[in-house]
């Protein structure tokens, strides 16, 4: 149980998310206009999208298929009969004066999403439903002092609204949930998950209550467009509600927006005037009926999803559940790891991939797709350590260079002559030099000050420019110091 301490005692936050995910499709949900992002204003608008008189909707089969695929990916129930309703309200970027959505009979019912928490524990979050609906256009408020500009390119693009149960209890869980949904959608290829371009937006419902008591009144924070903002908005809202209630106020059910700049949520009064959406079945459409066999076909064609991949990485490569869950966050990362790990020691591979490589990529602000070091190259580096051509220490330097110039490890080691020295003769010469230069210390050691051994090892390694094989150095030093 995740409790937040207030001045009058503990509070439990309750969070539910509505994720709006743009369906990957060529054309819109009910019209033949394109869905591409960033085109010239109103250049992707059919007369249907702009609600010209007499225009009628006809549904896109791929959007239906994508919704079913997503439902299956969320281990959810697929409703073979669903209905499209009209959600009526006036807004300049809603040309019809209603949004075609699914209210009482959505295409996808209850499902479940598993969260892998940092501490290795996992949580099951219920999915209430998934429904198909039209996106609205775009209102630009910053183009003119007294006018709002309207671009309808987005109007009618297919969205999947994925509604969670109020099962989340912290900003951290919410963040993990959104990332997990995003990963599943990207594995399925049903949404590109690009939050910067608005392909994924979240409405966040937050309330607080005393443990054991009924849920409190919730505030809905609309259209939060990054995981970080989702988490910050939730933390702010929890704080706000606790302070409000503890100072004798009450939380009102309302729509709020998250101001990233100020890092706070604010009430959207304008959206507050009595909403009554007057849902009713769209008489221009008929019930959407799916063939069970068709659904089974889609199910059979599903790719390996994050949970299965994670399980396999744990089983086949002995990774820790958490390492595995980090790796499967992006299919590309997991694939990269598997390429490196195949035929090599998985632990070592995992360390190099998740540790060194991801670290370097993060610093450089790159993702695996454009990593300067290929999986094969990283594998090559690991092989050089395995066959003792270079030491782990040297390997770190070689890695740096590889990351810089993208060259093969072998070539770099060759060129810079970093191959480690295993020839005992050469090493003995170095040891003799070091002992001669530190005769006094040799005496002390022989006098019983054995902890000086480390000092000699360091001296020898330094003198050998790090190239001496550490194992060999240990061996020979022991003998020689005994005298």
């Amino acid at each position, binding site marked *: 149980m995740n409790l937040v301490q207030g001045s009058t005692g503990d509070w439990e936050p309750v969070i539910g998310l509505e994720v709006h995910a743009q369906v990957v499709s060529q*054309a819109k949900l009910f019209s033949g206009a394109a869905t591409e992002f960033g085109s010239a204003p109103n*250049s*992707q608008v059919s*007369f249907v999208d702009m609600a010209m008189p007499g225009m009628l909707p006809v*549904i896109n089969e791929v959007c239906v298929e994508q919704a079913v695929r997503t439902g299956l990916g969320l281990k959810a129930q697929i409703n073979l009969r669903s209905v499209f309703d009209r959600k009526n309200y006036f807004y300049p970027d809603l040309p019809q004066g209603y949004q075609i959505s699914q209210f009482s009979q959505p295409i996808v019912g209850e499902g479940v999403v598993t969260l892998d928490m940092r501490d290795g524990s996992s949580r099951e979050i219920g999915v209430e439903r998934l429904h198909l609906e039209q996106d609205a256009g775009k209102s630009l408020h910053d183009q003119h002092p007294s*006018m709002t500009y*309207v671009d309808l390119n987005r109007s009618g693009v297919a969205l999947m609204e994925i509604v969670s149960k109020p099962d989340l209890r912290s900003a951290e869980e919410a963040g993990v949930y959104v990332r997990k949904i995003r990963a599943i959608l990207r594995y399925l290829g049903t949404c590109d998950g690009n939050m910067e371009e608005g392909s994924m937006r979240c409405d966040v419902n937050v309330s607080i209550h005393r443990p054991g008591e009924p849920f409190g009144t919730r505030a809905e924070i609309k259209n939060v467009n990054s995981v970080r903002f989702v988490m910050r908005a939730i933390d702010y809202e929890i704080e706000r509600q606790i302070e409000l209630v503890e100072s004798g106020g009450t939380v009102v059910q309302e729509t709020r927006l998250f101001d990233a700049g100020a890092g706070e949520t604010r009430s959207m009064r304008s*959206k507050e005037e*009595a909403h009554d959406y007057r849902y009713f079945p769209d008489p221009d459409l*008929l019930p959407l009926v799916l063939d069970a066999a068709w659904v089974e076909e889609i199910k059979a064609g599903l790719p390996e999803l994050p949970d299965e991949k994670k399980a396999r990485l744990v089983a086949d490569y002995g990774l820790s559940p958490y390492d595995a869950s980090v790796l499967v966050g992006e299919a590309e990362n997991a694939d990269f790891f598997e390429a490196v790990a195949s035929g090599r020691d998985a632990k070592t591979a995992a360390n190099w991939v998740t540790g060194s490589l991801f670290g370097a990529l993060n610093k450089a602000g790159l993702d695996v797709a454009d990593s300067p070091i290929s999986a094969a190259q990283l594998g090559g580096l690991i092989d050089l350590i395995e066959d003792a051509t270079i030491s782990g220490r040297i390997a770190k330097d070689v890695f740096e260079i590889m990351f810089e110039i993208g060259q093969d490890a072998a070539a770099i080691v060759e060129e810079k002559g970093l191959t480690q020295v295993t020839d005992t003769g050469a090493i003995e010469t170095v040891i003799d030099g070091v002992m001669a230069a530190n005769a006094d210390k040799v005496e002390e050691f022989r006098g019983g000050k054995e902890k000086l051994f480390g000092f000699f090892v360091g001296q020898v390694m330094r003198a050998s420019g790090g190239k001496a094989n550490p194992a060999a150095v240990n061996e020979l030093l022991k003998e020689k110091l005994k005298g």
Partner: protein
Amino acid sequence: MSLDKATVLHIAKLARIALRDDEVEPLAGELSGILAFVEQLDRVNTDDVEPMTSVVEMELRRRADEVTDGGQAEAALANAPERADSFFIVPKVIE
């Protein structure tokens, strides 16, 4: 159910239709008359009768996912009462 003036004003608000004060009273009367008329349906027993949504006994037909439309900003904007370049424009929305 007869509608009072407050209710008439509320639904007029929902429907975005401005009403002059002198319109509300008579409208309330007319609308109440229509409601009284349709409320005859209370006499019909509709227990376990499925609501009818369409007279067409068909499933929803689906079209292929192909771009066949759009690319006609000018035609789309040609009838606009007000526009700026390729945008529709409205009095600023305050949020």
